[in-house]
């Protein structure tokens, strides 16, 4: 049986959380709008004569993201029209970027390896279609609150090597977007949309496969992971039968645990891209970009390294605490306060992550540190009493001692437990541990 390896690149869309839309002054808040079609104007409705004016903040944020992901920035760029018909696209074209995206050639590190970023571009979201039955009639309704909301698209190279890698990439990217406070990435609502281009090839093969399957409309990282794993198996089956999987778009049905055909593309669509004549080309300077990026927040990966270096925080605790910007900033304050008081910062991290102390994000440092110290309050221990107990335990458990000395060091916990039980009070375990170790040598 041929062994296959995954060839996978991703396209992730995320809505930017600017105050106003991409090309008009309408409020950008499609998910909290009390009614449909209230955040609209001639521009985002595509009325005759409506003209787009680009949102500076959205451009700035896109470029900052590019810098955060190590991308090169096009100092000359422009918007293009992508022409196609769909009822959710009132102008008959989407304003996007084609040959001069703001950012290109970056890289995102994940725990499963790096993923090269091919490009990041900025475009406008479409309106939202709602298919309903009203008075027994099937109707399609259009809500333009989302029309022309700024949308970034981050495209990777086909560097993803496993379903876990795909998931890790998506999660890390979301974490960065949230840290930068430029996107909420609400997956349920469609504020962040994942697409994976999946194909497989025999291990060792260097050429890209001749086909690719687009996994689309996946609204969770878990589903993404499952869908990629499923596709690898499905495509391997087809290849083993001597078939080439067809080029198509597939979705994920979580109830059935399988992907399903959504659309088969017969030909490559021709979007007739051309530079949007309504929007003048954009020029940036290095100084301008440096100025914007001076405000770039410390990104999760950098902060993790710092925590590990400065406070010896375990990676697994750091990962949990770095998931949300708010939590991470709060943890940062706590760590600094704990270090100042010469408390064990990693133990504090452990206590928070494993909920050993009853605190919540935002609680002030004093409160948290008091709770933490109380947790580790120890009774003083009489040195002689401790030694006597240890000696007794050693004497009564010669077998265990022999095993320990023979190299079965896991048994150390047994001595700890015995001694602790006999002491009958809460003591500093480090002291106990050191004492037992000395005795056993």
């Amino acid at each position: 049986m041929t062994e296959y390896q995954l060839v996978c690149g991703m396209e992730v869309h995320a809505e930017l959380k600017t105050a106003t839309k991409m090309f008009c002054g309408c409020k950008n808040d499609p998910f909290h709008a009390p009614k449909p079609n209230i955040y609209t104007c001639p521009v985002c409705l595509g009325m005759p004569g409506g003209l787009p004016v680009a949102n500076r903040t959205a451009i700035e944020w896109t470029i900052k993201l590019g810098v955060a992901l190590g991308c090169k920035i096009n100092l000359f760029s422009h918007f293009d029209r992508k022409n196609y018909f769909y009822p959710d696209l009132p102008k008959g074209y989407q304003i996007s970027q084609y040959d001069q995206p703001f950012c290109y050639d970056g890289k995102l590190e994940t725990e499963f390896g790096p993923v090269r970023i091919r490009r990041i571009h900025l475009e406008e979201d479409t309106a939202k279609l709602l298919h309903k039955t009203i008075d027994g009639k099937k109707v399609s309704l259009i809500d333009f609150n989302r029309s022309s909301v700024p949308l970034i698209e981050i495209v990777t190279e086909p560097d993803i090597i496993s379903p876990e890698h795909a998931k890790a990439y998506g999660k890390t990217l979301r974490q960065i977007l949230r840290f930068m406070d430029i996107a909420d990435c609400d997956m349920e609502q469609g504020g962040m949309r994942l697409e994976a281009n999946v194909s497989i090839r025999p291990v060792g093969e260097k050429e890209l496969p001749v086909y690719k399957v687009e996994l689309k409309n996946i609204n969770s990282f878990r589903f993404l992971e499952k869908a990629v794993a499923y596709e690898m198996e499905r495509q391997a089956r087809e290849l083993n039968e001597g078939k080439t999987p067809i080029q198509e778009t597939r979705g994920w049905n979580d109830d059935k645990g399988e992907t399903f055909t959504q659309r088969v593309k017969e030909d490559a669509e021709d979007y007739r891209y051309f530079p949007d004549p309504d929007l003048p080309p954009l020029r940036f300077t290095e100084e301008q970009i440096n100025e914007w990026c001076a405000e770039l927040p410390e990104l999760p990966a950098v902060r993790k390294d710092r925590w590990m270096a400065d406070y010896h925080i375990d990676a697994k605790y750091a990962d949990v605490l770095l998931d949300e910007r708010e939590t991470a900033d709060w943890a940062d304050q706590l760590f600094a306060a704990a270090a100042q008081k010469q408390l064990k910062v990693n133990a504090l991290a452990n206590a928070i992550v494993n909920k050993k102390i009853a605190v919540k994000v935002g609680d002030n440092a004093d409160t948290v540190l008091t709770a933490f110290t109380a947790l580790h309050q120890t009774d003083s221990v009489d040195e002689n009493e401790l030694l006597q107990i240890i000696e007794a335990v050693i004497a009564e458990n010669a077998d265990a001692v022999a095993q320990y000395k023979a190299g079965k060091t896991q048994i150390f916990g047994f001595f700890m437990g015995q001694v602790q039980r006999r002491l009958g009070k809460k003591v500093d375990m480090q002291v106990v541990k050191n004492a037992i170790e000395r005795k056993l040598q």
Partner: protein
Amino acid sequence: MLNTLTLTEVLGKLKRKEISHAELFADLQKSYAQNEKLNIFLTMNDKLAEDSEAATTKALMGVPLAIKDNFCTTGLRTTASSTVLDTFIPQYDSTVTRRLKEAGAAIQGKTNMDAWAHGSSTETSQYGRTLNPRNPEHLPGGSSGGSAAAVAADMAIAAIGSETAGSIRQPSAWCGTVGLKPTYGRVSRYGVVSMASSTDSPGPITKTVEDAALLLNHIAGHDPYDGTSSTNPVDDYTQALGQSIEGLKIGVIYMDIPGLAEVKSLFEPQLKVFEELGAHVEYAQAMDPNHAIGVYTVVQRSEVSSNLARYDGVRYGNDRSHFGDEAKRRIMLGTYTLSKGYADKYYLLAQKVRTLFLQDFARLFQKYDILVSLTSPGFAKKIGASESSAMFGELEDMLVEPSSITGLPGINVPCYHDPKTNLYLGMNIMAPMWHESEMISVADAFEKHTSWNSWRNAEKQ
């Protein structure tokens, strides 16, 4: 008849209370009898009196203006002369009409045009062709044919048009009016039904140069709703009136184009007046305007195919079957020139040639302050002339297309009148970008020192 007054005259007489709004409206009302024959206005503003009354204290004193039907006007039907928009009543005003209203103008009505501004005859209008008031056997030109005809017929005191490549200047030439196409980006396009976004320029069509300068003052300037509108400071264009043109260097171009023979001999003697006024006049060699036809045809069709995509039948009542033949032809050609594999060959190549035109004008303007040429290669054509020629507009607009695709300002002034046909020739006066004032000075001087303007010289014609 007060409807024959110029805008400046009307404002003066209203200010001095020599005439009343009621008298003015009564005379305009009488002139509307011509509409049945000439087919100039598509929609009249039935609240004109009310709107005017409310604006009398402002600069434009509630004077009515005719507006080309591709400017969105709140509550007033806007069709761009296509039945696709037969029932479209905009919820908003174009920046131009908003500014004019704020300055005290009242919207008189909406004028006929080539459908979607595609053409130079007004014959592609889906509401029927407009006839040239100077001689109804002839066309008024286009696409702003209705606005030029409204002024020529004295059915309007002044009008607003829009030009993509000749659509203000060419109908002005054919109707014997003044038509000013500003620098691209000088006047906001917001709310104007888009034709070719990279060249669309709204501007005034008036009886005199001073009226054009006055209206330009009210519509020019940066608009935050139009990303292509310029933040360059705006002159007071009326200050350019009555200025000496002594010492100005004027280059005459496009005189060697084949087919000009008929009118060349009528046009050339008109240049003498510039020398009499102390300017230096010289014939200059410019890049062949035939190339501009190619550039414009590709760029304009490409942009049109995208700009008209929004009329997809989902909204506005009427679907795509309502597009006329000219719109369909342009959509098809533009779709083709933007298609994969062809965009490089056509659209991008056209943009490169456009750059060559820019360079050529830059070269010419190093030597000359002003360039002049004929506006149109001939007199107004007979009705029906456009129907057999898909490239009719491009050939009629050849002499103004180079300045259009390069965004230059230009103004048409009448420069010859044929007493036999009552038809006019127009002179196209062009300046470097943002130099409308110099152009206005030259046009104003020409108008005042010649007898071709029918309002300034009513007794002679």
